[in-house]
């Protein structure tokens, strides 16, 4: 298998080099046949990558421990389903996976590319082929997953225990896939620029491919947050860790791009700006690869740490220089067709939103790099972690959310006073009413109140627009559901965007709740004892052993009771006086109003080979709040040491996921090209996705 894999990779090097050279020479020397064969060679690299991947997966399935990578990331105890995870669990395998994704999406994108881009296709192919060549070469020369061991071990080392979670089947592949997918819009736009194709022909293909990559990356990050919440046992979901930040930064830039590309599509403006955004996004994705693979920063989860840092740094610098040299060369030809007419216009609000996204990106980048500057400038190590990013990025992120309510309500070109009044009155009333209600309810933190109010404002703006559109269609005879459905279908990019906005609002609710109102207590309890926090009582009722040869593992069964704090007044007052949020209770007698509501089973394992602990938190989730129990340790005296917290609104973080995915898909769904109603005859069909053959 190892030989087959190596041969496939070597063939891939040759094919991608041939595709790159062939495309360029074919174009320059006007050798059409060479260009066609280069085009086809790029399909064949996909086959090479697929064969190499299949060889590696097959080796895992066969427990072929003569291959070093297999021996290091698998063992005979491993559930076979995790072969898929083991495939990308380490540096070499994840590179192969990234290459596979790149090869497949390159092939699909050049297959689907619209005919009118024919002139720039050779250059697009060359850029895609060169990127593939880079990965093929790294895999062959520096990080081969098919390296053989001199002596074949009895059993492998096993998979990294933190990766044995259902979330791992999809989180890393989506994250890596999303990062590499930015290559496609970049290749199309750069190809068009080199070829001198300055029209807007590339808009649709760039928009569609960018949204796909952006949606995949966003879903990947959300799944990562969910995984961290349920398994890492640090009690959080987003730590502003360097590895997380390098995935977030390109996502932010691509978010800016998919907004401003609409301005170019509708108004012929922002050409240069869109190209610049794609360039930045692509370079940041390369920065992500670099930091992931032996970058100079410390991270919680660098599963792929390696000595490839320098190689990836070089590739990132080369792409940086290439992208911006090309940009500067072609800048004079990328003027806007029109100019901005007013501050109060959608294009102006999109520009502001773009700059806000870029400033969050830049601040994050600064935070990631600051420890290096400090080391370099004064030889003192500093840490830059969540408290810094929360404070530096928090206000701007809230500003972005607010823009989400303002921008879509503004018309293109210029808003009249009347339309402002017509559209902003309701959301502003909702904003004020929210503040009043929260104050009356006794919510105390003004900033949290304000944040909730902004969320309500944006939600009101979306509901208002949907309501008016649906009501108008309802008046013309459709029933309500159909009217709404037709409204969404009438302009999918716009309304898909709104659905994504709703998911961001849900995410916002979760972030506000968990950041401002989390309660937390630590304590150790034995069998029969309880830990009490707020109006929950967590009783330790049973325990068991779940050890396997590679781990020492224990689980606990705990009953969750809803309690009336009045029943516990004395103890609560005592704990408060001690400065504690919660307290332990020795006796197991029920108080009058205790009501059992759930059973949770937190689990704690220690992996000997990895010298690493892994936990499953016990979570009782409702839409109002999560009771979240982390088993820190099973003590030798029979007690279990717990960190228990109440995470308000945490449910909304994960509920936002489906909305994010559905919204992205609605926005991507191709508009019907044929319209029946005569009133729509002037409607421009949206050629979002064209499925013409290649030649």
């Amino acid at each position, binding site marked *: 298998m190892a030989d087959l894999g190596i041969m496939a990779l070597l063939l891939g090097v040759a094919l991608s080099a041939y595709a790159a050279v062939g495309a360029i020479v074919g174009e320059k020397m006007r050798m059409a046949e060479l260009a066609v064969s280069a085009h086809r060679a790029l399909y064949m690299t996909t086959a090479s990558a697929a064969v190499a991947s299949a060889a590696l997966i097959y080796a895992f399935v066969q427990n072929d421990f003569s291959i070093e990578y297999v021996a290091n990331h698998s063992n005979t105890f491993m559930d076979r389903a995790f072969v898929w995870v083991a495939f990308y669990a380490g540096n070499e395998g994840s590179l192969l996976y990234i290459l596979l994704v790149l090869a497949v999406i390159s092939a699909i994108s050049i297959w689907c590319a619209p005919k009118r881009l024919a002139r720039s296709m050779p250059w697009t192919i060359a850029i895609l082929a060169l990127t593939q060549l880079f990965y093929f070469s790294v895999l062959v020369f520096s990080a081969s997953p098919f390296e053989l061991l001199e002596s074949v071990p009895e059993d492998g080392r096993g998979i990294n225990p933190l990766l044995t979670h259902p979330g791992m089947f999809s989180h890393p592949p989506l994250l890596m896939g999303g990062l590499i997918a930015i290559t496609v819009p970049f290749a199309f736009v750069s190809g068009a620029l080199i070829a001198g194709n300055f029209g807007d022909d590339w808009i649709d293909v760039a928009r569609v491919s960018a949204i796909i990559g952006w949606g995949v990356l966003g879903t990947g990050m959300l799944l990562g947050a969910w995984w961290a919440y349920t398994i890492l046992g640090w009690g959080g979901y987003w730590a502003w860790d360097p590895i997380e930040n390098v995935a977030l930064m390109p996502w932010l830039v691509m978010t800016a791009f998919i907004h401003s590309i609409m301005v170019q599509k509708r108004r012929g403006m922002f050409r240069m700006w869109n190209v610049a955004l794609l360039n930045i996004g692509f370079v940041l994705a390369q920065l992500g690869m670099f930091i992931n693979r032996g970058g100079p920063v410390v991270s919680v989860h660098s599963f792929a740490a390696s000595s490839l840092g320098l190689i990836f740094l070089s590739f990132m610098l080369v792409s940086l220089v290439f992208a911006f040299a090309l940009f500067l060369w072609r800048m004079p030809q990328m003027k806007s*067709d029109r100019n901005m007419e007013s501050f109060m216009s959608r294009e102006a609000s999109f520009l502001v939103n773009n700059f806000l996204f870029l400033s969050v990106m830049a601040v994050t980048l600064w935070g990631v790099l600051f420890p290096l500057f400090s080391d370099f400038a004064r030889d003192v190590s500093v840490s830059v972690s969540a408290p810094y990013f929360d404070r530096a990025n928090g206000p701007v992120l809230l500003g972005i959310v607010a823009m989400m309510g303002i921008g879509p309500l503004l018309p293109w070109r210029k808003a009249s006073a009347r339309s402002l009044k017509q559209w902003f009155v309701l959301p502003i009333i909702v904003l004020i009413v929210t503040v009043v209600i929260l104050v009356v309810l006794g919510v105390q933190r003004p900033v949290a109140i304000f944040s909730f109010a902004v969320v309500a404002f944006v939600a009101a703006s979306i509901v208002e627009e949907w309501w008016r559109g649906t009501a108008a269609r309802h008046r013309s005879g459709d029933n309500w559901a159909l009217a709404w459905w037709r409204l969404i279908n009438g302009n999918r990019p716009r309304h898909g965007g709104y659905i994504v906005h709703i998911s961001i609002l849900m995410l916002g609710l979760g972030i506000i709740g968990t950041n401002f109102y989390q309660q937390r207590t630590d304590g150790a309890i034995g069998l029969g004892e309880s830990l009490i926090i707020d109006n929950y009582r967590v009783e330790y009722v049973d325990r068991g052993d779940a050890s396997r040869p590679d781990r020492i593992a224990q689980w606990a069964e705990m009953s969750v009771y809803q309690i009336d704090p009045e029943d516990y007044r004395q103890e609560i007052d005592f704990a408060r006086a001690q400065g504690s949020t919660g307290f332990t209770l020795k006796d197991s007698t029920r108080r009058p109003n205790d009501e059992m509501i759930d059973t949770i089973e937190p689990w704690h394992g220690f992996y000997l080979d990895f010298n690493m602990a892994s936990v499953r938190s016990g979570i009782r989730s409702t839409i109002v709040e999560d009771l979240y129990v982390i088993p820190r340790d099973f003590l030798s005296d029979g007690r279990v040491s717990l960190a228990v917290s109440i995470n308000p609104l945490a449910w909304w973080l994960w509920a936002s996921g489906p909305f994010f995915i559905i919204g992205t898909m609605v926005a991507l769904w191709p508009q019907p090209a044929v319209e029946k109603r005569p009133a729509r005859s002037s409607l421009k069909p949206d050629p979002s996705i064209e499925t013409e053959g290649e030649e």
Partner: protein
Amino acid sequence: MTSSLTSLMIQTVLVSRFVADNEIGFIESRCGKLPHHFFSPCIDWGSLDGERLVMASRFPFKLIGPRALPQRLNVATLIVLITSLVLLFSACIREEDITLEQRAHQLSGELMCLVCDGQTIDGSSAQIAIDMRLKVRELLEEGNTNAQIREYFVVRYGEEILAAPGGRGFNRLAWIVPVVIVVGAIGIALFTIKNMRDSSLKKQTAAGTSEAVSEYESDLDDYLAKVDRDLGISDDRSYSTDTSNKENL
């Protein structure tokens, strides 16, 4: 004019916030312990003389003066208003509202676990993290302020122990640069919009009437007018190129 004025305001507001933010010791001496949360929410209206609150609140008042608020509300003003509101609310939290344990938990989130690759001691179950958490609680019970406790750990483990760089000396840079970035970005955006608007106004004046609307644009007009009809709204909402507007140009 308005835009440069507003960007100047934003700048002043943010810089004042920054300056105030970094005098952590000073603020804590006035308003108790600051959580290291974004916005550092304030509910302690008793401390209205807290430096930050006063600084921040000056700006909204300036805006509300008889001549300061532009006649027509524009995006820039809205942004300033929102920013100012946020800043108005930022100050400090009343100490008795959070338990010692809550404070210990927050402080633990500000201290790195140096042996566990980028985790704070709050999230880690390494032995050193457990010991440090106990130490934090102990120091709090002795009545130390958050700043004193941070200092305690910095003296023993070096600056690396802080999850966010302190606001003094070289580390001031860590906090200045984001302010410059955000102010710069908003400034550039507003400046660009203003420039583009001015040149389009000039063009229109020079031409006397609006330029011939391109075929694409007239297509777009029809489309958008249709969208307006579908949405059941008047023409000036979604696109202002109906006939009356064209004549105006």
